[in-house]
């Protein structure tokens, strides 16, 4: 299973963290510190796997952003690498050629999208189309709720005028 997901920028800024195994606040910061030290210092053209505290960390760099997932030693590393890429492709399709800024200003969206890809540290859905369809339904629900709120607000305003 995937124990956690980390998105770290080349400068070591954290862009997303998601923990599927229980880590305390203190452990979380420690893990981030340790792993950014290891992953960011690895040169290009090396393999995408790092051994770390009895676990494997599978990572891949996209532009200035490192996507890392920590798994058990016996898990299939390439499968997880595929999950990373699948997640990136979904982000890309959702945001329309995604860049780091999209993920910074819409970090809550990134969390939401990740929840459609992984639950309990396990892979959930391999159809990009299904996920994108779902995401847009939910976006429209948020929009509708907002419009409702404004129209109710308008009505109240008109009544009280």
């Amino acid at each position: 299973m995937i124990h956690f997901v980390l998105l770290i920028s080349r400068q070591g800024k954290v862009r997303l963290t998601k923990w599927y195994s229980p880590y305390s606040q203190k452990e979380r910061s420690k893990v981030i510190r340790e792993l950014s030290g290891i992953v960011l210092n690895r040169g290009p053209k090396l393999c995408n796997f790092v051994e770390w505290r009895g676990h494997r960390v599978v990572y891949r760099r996209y532009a200035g952003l490192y996507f890392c997932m920590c798994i058990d030693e016996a898990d299939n590393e390439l499968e997880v690498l595929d999950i990373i890429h699948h997640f990136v492709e979904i982000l890309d399709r959702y945001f329309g050629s995604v860049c780091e800024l999209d993920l910074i200003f819409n970090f809550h969206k990134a969390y939401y999208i990740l929840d459609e890809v992984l639950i309990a540290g396990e892979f959930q859905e391999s159809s990009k189309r299904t996920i994108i369809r779902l995401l847009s339904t939910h976006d429209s629900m948020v929009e509708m709720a907002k419009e409702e709120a404004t129209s109710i607000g308008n009505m109240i305003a008109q009544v009280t005028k």
Partner: protein
Amino acid sequence: MALSGMRGLSVFISDVRNCQNKEQERLRVDKELGNVRTRFKNEKGLSPYEKKKYVWKMLYIYMLGYDVDFGHMEAVSLISAPKYPEKQVGYIVTACLLNENHDFLRLAINTVRNDIIGRNETFQCLALTLVGNIGGREFAESLAADVQKLLISSSCRPLVRKKAALCLLRLYRKNPDVVNVDGWADRMAQLLDERDLGVLTSSMSLLVALVSNNHEAYWSCLPKCVKTLERLARNQDIPQEYTYYGIPSPWLQVKTMRALQYFPTVEDPNTRRSLFEVLQRILMGTDVVKNVNKNNASHAVLFEALALVMHLDAEKEMMSQCVALLGKFIAVREPNIRYLGLENMTRMLMVTDVQDIIKRHQAQIITSLKDPDISIRRRALDLLYGMCDVSNAKDIVEELLQYLSSADFAMREELSLKAAILAEKFAPDLSWYVDVILQLIDKAGDFVSDDIWFRVVQFVTNNEDLQSYAAAKAREYLNKPAIHETMVKVSAYILGEYGHLLARRPGYSPKELFTIIHEKHPTVSTSTIPILLSSYAKILMHTQPPEPELQNQIWTIFNKYESCIDVEIQQRAAEYFALSRKGASLMDILAEMPKFPERQSALIRKAEDAEVDTAEQSAIKLRAQQQMSTALVVTDQRPPNGMPAQPSIGPLSLVKVPSETVDSQNPGDQGLTHPNGVVYKEDPQPPSQDIIGDLLGTLSIEGPPGAVAQSPQSATYEAEGAPSAADAAALVPVGEESGSVQPIGNINERFYALCLKDSGVLYEDPNIQIGIKAEWRAHQGRLVLFLGNKNTASLGSVQALILPPTHLKMELSLVPETIPPRAQVQCPLEVMNLRPSRDVAVLDFSYKFGPTMVNVKLRLPAVLNKFLQPITVSPEEFFPQWRSLSGPPLKLQEVVCI
């Protein structure tokens, strides 16, 4: 996008991004936190929208790495908001900020449950996601039934059901009892008929978790897995959206094959045939292509197929096909494939018959030891370590030694430990072993633990033909201007003991030996000085006739240390000084150290412990354990004349196996190896276990071997050569070697250790090792006894009876009458505690080996503390209780003077 409208949040993020330095950022964040805190305080005036905005801000700040110790309540409370936008935020932020142990989560259980059983599909999804991501035990107990219902409901849409499957998986991990095996097995099989591949993928993950604990209940799923795999591998009827770079869901393929690896075998011939056809197709049909993503996906499937083939123990032909593939992989340019090639080759070593094919790739593997990527270097080291045996030990160890000088620090410790273990396990001759260890100390002294040099001293002491060789080597190293302190220790010790054997050679006179050792004296720390003092005393004793000048020099040193603040040094100095004036008695007391009793190598033990520690519930590990015994039989290179039955080898049971190996290679030398002329009775029992036997014993049983009789302290003491009772005691086993089977280690100590931990060795003797692994839950417990036969012959008339005290109900499953050679049998034992008591259950265990009947009564570590459970008590509950304890006899107080 959705952020339109949350301008405050965007502005805040921009502000933080515009900060010039960390200090500014902190100020900006603190300001915002202050703001959010005040807004939360007068919550009444907060609109849902504002609340949502602040909760997002908190998550952002938290992600930046700042401590956010408030507002959790607000996040949790948003979960119960009636509208989707707020509810969604509540769910997502709660799942990010809190972990499963957080108290606030408990408050949300009811709301979450209502969302799960409610009619709103979107809310169901949110709730299932939260529980799936951070649900703990309590969630498992209160929600599992509802989640199961959703998963099998025909009215739920796939998007809810796939989440329910993974949510149930999480709950099952937290508490396996929430899935009732009897009822669920059929349902699980039905789930595998699912048409929707999203639901099928999630269900397959669930199945993997279920079968990893109990494959027997889920036999009916096996043919369905094979069908699914066939359908995917042949790309039959797979919707376009479920292919990834042209490959039908690689994830589902991988998971299906993973599930299959938990079934011990595929019995039905038809199913087996179709499975092998599919695997063959995957193995042969995967090419390396240009597109890296396609490559990753196809190889993810390929490597899983390899693992499955290994597990199924396919025909030799298919195996060699696999090894050939791996051989190709470890030489390709793509680093991921190289890495996985090495890793899978290491796993392949567990499979019989392929070691020789793997050995053909040795040169390539050694090249990988110099790869620019440390991950790959580590894999190569692991593989070399695993594939090493008597035939290639020399090459591999020398390669490791050479690499040691250039290896990065992160790897040196592991590297030197592995080199030391291999040298000991597979030494073709002992002088080579001494060479290797001395080189190791020379090149990486900092990483050579005391165990390693103690071990060398033991070998040299126990093998007389090695002593002068070792002394000459030690002398050579002392010539170097700067040497590691460990080298000083080992050289001084060896020269003190055996330097006199070379006294006739130039440069080895007592005076010269003393001078060269004493040259290092100013550079060493206090831990080395006692060893130097012993060496001096020994040199003095060996100086015949006495040389007054040398004597005076050494006496001056003793005198100087007689007032040393370190007790050990002071005592040695004073005693040696007094003794050296007594003449004859000096000769007796400082005589050569007796041979060490046979003991398991501390190093190998340590390595095993480490392996046991990292053992995890995984297909590969389980498999490794199942197959360990066969693997060892194959690597057991013990030649025929090393067989226990041969009387001439009897004395060798006191010496470690490498000397046996020497013997077997130069049979003519046998007399030299044990020239002490002691006549040994022929022992009806085989000699105590050899190293390979040790390895079998402890690796196949999951507990760390007990370390009682061979505690490191005693090793230190003896190795340092202090005249002591321990030395005398060390001789006892030599004289007392009798026909009865003696336990290895202290049974009591082992029992006490097991009272405090849940896995380990309960009992061990030369023939059998009994390990225990236990799980406890409230008043119930499940122990598994691992009975491991260490011999190459079967153990017969095996009987295990449980004598439970009245307060325990115990049920032991059937114990087989015979344990095959080098096999391990597992016997589960169920325990139920009826009331508190300090009585202990006893295992009456007996077996027959050859003519000898062995019977032992062992206490079982099902003691009271195993049934205790922690409870959480709030201060309101605790203090009244605490205060009610007033005065004797409930509360006693006493003032003690120190």
